[in-house]
C-alpha cells in the first residue's frame, strides 16, 4: 500500500483491525481478555480522540477509533496525541511513556504490567500501516 492513511481515521482503523486479526497470535497474547482505550489529548483541530481495543481469549474482537466520547474499558491511558503517535510509529514504548509520566494510566497496575508486552505487540502491528500522522 503506497497511500498513507490518516491516523485514527475510519480507513486506518479498518486496516488496523485487519492486520491485528491476521498478525496477532492469540497464544502470544496469553489468551488474555481485556480492553483498553487510549485518550488522545490535543489532537488535530484541538480535538480529543480515542483508540479502543478489546481482546477476548487473546483474539482482537474490537478495534475502534474516533472522536470522544470513548467506549468504556478496563484500562484507560491518557496523554498527548503526539506521544501516542510516537508510540504507534514505534519510536517510543508505551511502558517508557508511562514511566516518564508522558502518559497516565487508570486501571489495575498489577494486571497492566503483565499486559505491557502485549501492548507493544499491538503497537508493532499498527506501525505497519502507512500512516499520515497529521502532526499537530
Amino acid at each position, binding site marked *: 500500500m503506497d497511500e498513507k492513511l490518516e491516523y485514527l481515521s475510519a480507513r486506518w482503523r479498518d486496516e488496523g483491525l485487519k492486520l491485528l486479526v491476521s498478525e496477532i497470535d492469540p497464544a502470544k497474547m496469553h489468551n488474555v481478555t481485556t480492553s483498553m482505550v487510549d485518550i488522545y489529548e490535543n489532537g488535530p483541530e484541538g480535538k480529543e480522540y480515542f483508540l479502543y481495543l478489546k481482546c477476548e481469549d487473546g483474539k482482537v474482537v474490537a478495534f475502534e477509533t474516533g472522536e470522544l466520547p470513548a467506549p468504556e474499558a478496563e484500562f484507560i491511558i*491518557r*496523554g498527548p496525541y503526539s506521544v501516542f503517535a510516537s508510540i504507534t510509529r514505534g519510536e517510543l514504548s508505551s511502558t517508557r*511513556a*508511562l*514511566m*516518564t*509520566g*508522558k*502518559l*497516565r*494510566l*487508570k486501571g*489495575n*497496575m*498489577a494486571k497492566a*504490567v503483565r499486559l505491557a508486552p502485549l501492548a507493544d505487540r499491538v503497537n508493532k502491528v499498527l506501525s505497519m500501516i502507512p500512516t499520515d500522522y497529521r502532526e499537530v
Partner: protein
Amino acid sequence: MANRLDQTSPYYIDNRKRVADLQKAMEREGLDAYLGTRPRTLSFLLDAFIPWRSYVVVPRKGEPILHTFIVDATRVGDETWLSTDNVRAYAPMGGQDPVSLIAACLTEELGIERGRLGVEDGIATYTAEGNLSHYEYTQLEAALPGWTLVNAHHLVDELSIIKDAPTVARFREASRIVDVGQRAVFEALSDGGWKHLTETVVGGIAALAMRKEGSVSEWNFAGLNEISSGYRTALGACTPPTTKALAAGEPLMVDLHSMFHLALGDHSHNYLIGPATKRQRRHADNFVDLVQTVLDHYREGATPSSLAQVMMDRAESLDCSDFLLPGCEHGIGLFGDEWRIGHAMEGPFPYWTNPDHVYQEGEMVICAMQYASMEEGIGFRYENPILIGKRGCEPLSKHPLVIEEIF
C-alpha cells in the same frame, strides 16, 4: 501445613468480620473511609505479609482495596483473602503513583467527593511502624480537596488487642517452632559443641531448625535471631549477633524469632558456658526466680506497673535490684504489631505503654525481662509470648525456664 485461608483450618481467621468490625467503628466515628498504612494494620486486616509501603483503603461498606508496590503486588494478591481485583499496584508511572491512585479510588471508584478519611499517624519506638508521612499527608490533602484527614489508628488498635482463637493458635505454633530452634541450639552447644561456634552461627543453626518446621522469617527488626555472649549479654535489649566466638566461663543469650502465618514466636533462653563462677550462678538463679515470680502474677486485672513492682520487690529481697530494667513486657500482635501495650492514649506519655493499663483476658504480651551487670560482663534476657487469662497466664513457649551450665 494447614492453609490459613481454609475455613476448616485452626488458623483460619474471619477476616471479613475484622473488616466489618472496623467499618462499624468507622461509622461510629463518622469516617467515610480508612486509610491503613502500618504493617500491623495490613497484617490484621489483610492476613498477608506485606512488607513494602502499602495503603489499604477501607470504605464504609464493601471490600477493602489495597495499593501495594508493583514488585510485590502479584504475590500479595496470591496470599491475601482479598479478591485479585482489589489488590492494586502502584508504580512510578503516570497516574499510578500512590496518592493519585488513593484519590481516584476514593473520589471516582467509591464516588465520595467529600468526606472524612481516617489515617494512621503518631510516633513509635518501632522504626517500621508505618505511620503516614508528612509528605504523604500533605499530598493526600492536596489531592482530596473535599476531604478531612483524621487520625484514627486507635480503631484498628482497639480491635486487635484481644486475640481471637485462630490468632492464639498461630502464636502457639510459632512458639512451638521457636522451641524447636531452642532445642537445636542446645544440642549444638552440648558436649563441647560450643567450642566451634560464633554468635552468628548459633543464630543460623536456630534459623535452619525453625525454617524446617515452617517458620518463614526470623522477623525481628532488631537483628533477626539475637545472640550475644560474654560482656555483650549485658549490653541491653538489642543484641544482633556478631562473629564473636563463644568462650568458656561466659554467659550466652539466645533470643529466637519465628513467624507462622504472621504470628510471632519470640523466646529468649540463657546459658552459662562452663565453668561458671559461683557469682555467675547466683545471678542466673536470681534471674530465673524473678522471671517465675513475674509470670506467676500475670492475670486479668494486673497492670504493667503492678507487675514491675512485683519484680522489683522480689529483686530487692534477692539483693539484685540494681541489675534490672524496671519493666517486664512489651506488646505483640501479628507482624508489625510490636512494643506498645494497649490501644488507648490514656497514659502519661502518648504512644508509650500506659503503666496503669489493666490487662484483660485474651490479651497477649511478650513477658520481657532484662538483667545485666555491666561491671561483671554478665546479663540475661527472658522473652516469651504469654496469653493472659482470668486467673493466670499461659507462656506459649514451653522451653524449660532454666539457665544451664554447658560444657
